[in-house]
């Protein structure tokens, strides 16, 4: 069984993350994938370079999950996997999944998870364009290069 809160350099398997939160008692699994987009504003993105403080990132992910359980007691399990290294357009950077007996709380809980990951998990990304590069800093940059 792979870790439910993980930083990885390998491609993320959607099936594996889904299996991490599955349980016979849970009828709903809701999953978000963050994918590297080809444009940011007017610039064409060539690729992104992700960096993490892995040991802390995985601990903060677990804390985010604990907050989810505190706010939505119906949520069964949470899994958060973020890929680091060089990622090209169309590659999956983040997969977050939540499960519950019924679907209603999963959408809001998943939105909370993704927002918290962007705000508080120590991960950074550098956008690389054809003619330059820049670190994207802080949640104000949310949604520039990734959905």
């Amino acid at each position: 069984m792979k870790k439910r809160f993980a930083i990885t350099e390998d491609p993320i398997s959607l099936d594996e993350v889904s299996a991490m939160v599955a349980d016979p008692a849970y009828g709903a699994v809701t999953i978000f994938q963050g994918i590297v987009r080809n444009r940011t504003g007017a610039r064409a993105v060539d690729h992104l370079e992700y960096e993490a403080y892995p040991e802390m990132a995985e601990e903060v992910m677990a804390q985010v999950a604990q907050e989810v359980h505190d706010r939505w007691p119906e949520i069964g399990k949470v899994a958060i996997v973020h890929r680091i290294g060089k990622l090209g357009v169309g590659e999956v950077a983040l997969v977050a999944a939540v499960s519950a007996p019924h679907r209603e709380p999963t959408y809001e809980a998943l939105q909370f998870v993704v927002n918290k990951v962007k705000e508080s998990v120590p991960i950074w990304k550098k956008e690389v364009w054809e003619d330059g590069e820049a670190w994207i800093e802080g949640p104000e940059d949310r949604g520039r290069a990734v959905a």
Partner: protein
Amino acid sequence: MRSPLEQLRVYIEREMGVSAVQITIRWFARLRERTGRSQETVSVEPGRTVEDLARAMEERYPGMRLLSGGIRVARNRRYSGFATKLEDGDEIAFFPPVGGG
């Protein structure tokens, strides 16, 4: 032959009669690029704070700002404030605003 770091520790212990506090600093993103390293070990006097360490690093790396620009600090993998006192063996990370996802 002692390393400069070891020499500093010996100096602090001899001159101040106290044990120096050993800190591991970890640098990330643009701070890693600026310092040219992902981590380093430093000795500081007992009783110093994260802010003292940040000031010392701003002097070591001219032009680098740690006390402004939204730089976050983590002590032993947990978000921390600049007023926190350093203890022997601490791992202190300085990093820019995070932006994963």
